[in-house]
């Protein structure tokens, strides 16, 4: 197995990111790849398909999420568990674009989203789930009964790229996440063609991490980059 390429800067790690690509973005507060997202924003990528838990407001130029790209008209489609605020008073640019028919959107129950990504990284094309039965989410989907209960057919998700936020990494690309920063990271790392990882701690030599402690094996990782000292490490407020 060829080890991942280790880049010196975030900008170099995303330099060849192609317009029109699909991108999985992990994060649930912690575990968001803020540094790679900011680098991609400046790289200029456009015409994106984003897959993330929420589409984000995109109002902070430092903490870049899908919302920053959406506000600039650089996203053609979003797949997420939150595409609109649950408070009518706070409306994002993305919500306005979706309502105006200018941005294609698919809203997915969060567990279905996670399982579609897991399936995508596991060689499983689809699965049945009870989530969404009897709701708008079931419209147009196959319903099948197992043991007297109805389930929806949901299909796997993969992506051209994912940006991952890891706590520790070795030069083989083995990754360890910290606490709830894990969230979507392990499953997205498995579901993308090119997995690019920003790492909080210095990247260590092969053999220094205990194999029993690895959350994401290096076979899923193509690129690594250490977050620079002046990068975004800790976000002290919910986003």
């Amino acid at each position, binding site marked *: 197995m060829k080890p991942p390429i280790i880049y010196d800067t975030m900008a170099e790690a995303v330099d060849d990111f192609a317009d029109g690509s699909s991108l999985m973005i992990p994060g649930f507060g912690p575990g968001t790849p803020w540094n790679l997202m900011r680098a991609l924003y400046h790289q200029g990528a456009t015409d994106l398909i984003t897959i993330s838990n929420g589409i984000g407001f995109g109002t902070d130029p430092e903490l870049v999420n899908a919302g920053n790209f959406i506000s600039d008209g650089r996203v053609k489609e979003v797949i997420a568990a939150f595409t609109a605020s649950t408070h009518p008073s706070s409306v994002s640019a993305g919500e306005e674009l979706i309502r105006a028919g200018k941005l294609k959107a698919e809203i997915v129950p969060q567990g279905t989203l996670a399982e579609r990504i897991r399936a995508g990284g596991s060689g499983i094309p689809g699965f049945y789930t009870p989530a969404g039965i009897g709701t708008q989410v079931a419209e147009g989907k196959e319903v099948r009964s197992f043991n007297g209960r109805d389930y929806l057919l949901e299909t796997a998700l993969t992506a051209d790229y994912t940006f991952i936020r890891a706590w520790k990494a070795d030069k083989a690309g083995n990754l360890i996440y910290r606490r709830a920063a894990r969230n979507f990271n392990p499953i997205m790392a498995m579901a993308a063609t090119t997995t690019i990882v920003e790492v909080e701690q210095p990247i260590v030599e092969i053999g220094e991490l205990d194999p029993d402690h690895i959350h994401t094996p290096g076979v899923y990782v193509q690129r690594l980059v250490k977050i620079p000292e002046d990068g975004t490490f800790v976000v002290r407020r*919910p986003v």
Partner: protein
Amino acid sequence: MTTTEKRPLTRDQMAAVCAQHLGEGWNVNLGIGIPTLTSNFIREEMQITLSSENGVIGYGVLAGEGEEDTDVVNAGVQYVTLNPGAAIVHHADSFALIRSGKIDVSILGAYEVAIDGSFANWKTRNEPSNGLGGIGGAMDLAACAKQIYVAMQHTTRDGAPRLVTECSLPVTAPAGAVTLVVTDIAVVRVAGGEFTLEQVAPGYTEDDIRQVTEGKLSISPSLHEMSV
């Protein structure tokens, strides 16, 4: 009941009432808003495990100012503490726990609850499917948790009932999901196609509740004032 001043519950008091309705040893999921406040009112001897959608199994109270671990958050992205014995899993494993029926109760916020136990909490307008909404984990939880409690204000800001005969907004789950509703003025059981009033806030009468509740409302023989 004697006439006293009407005292609707604060958000914290609603969370405390939710905590009173948890069983010993339960595995509990708390949704965003009033439900997440419930974590502050769970007594240790109850042996409750709090699990959140983002894969934190066994979290405790909200973290105090200056004591936050920025990598430890609940479903509302609030900083919480980890209890001894906590475990972390990734998002798909977190929903494996939910989907396989291992959550005893999920307490969620909502806009409306209907007499058949259906409820609405992911879309603020009655509109056809258009890709917009805030589902989060609510549909997975509603379909798979053993019970759903809803914590919400009893009426809209305009005074319209939120406990209704039929939801006007797109539902999160069809009939049979919600078993209990905790509002600022009442505790209402949902079963058998009707609401049953079990508790009232201090100073409120069954007539007060009936005036702001749509749909069949029975009165529990053990109706009593909440202890808050």
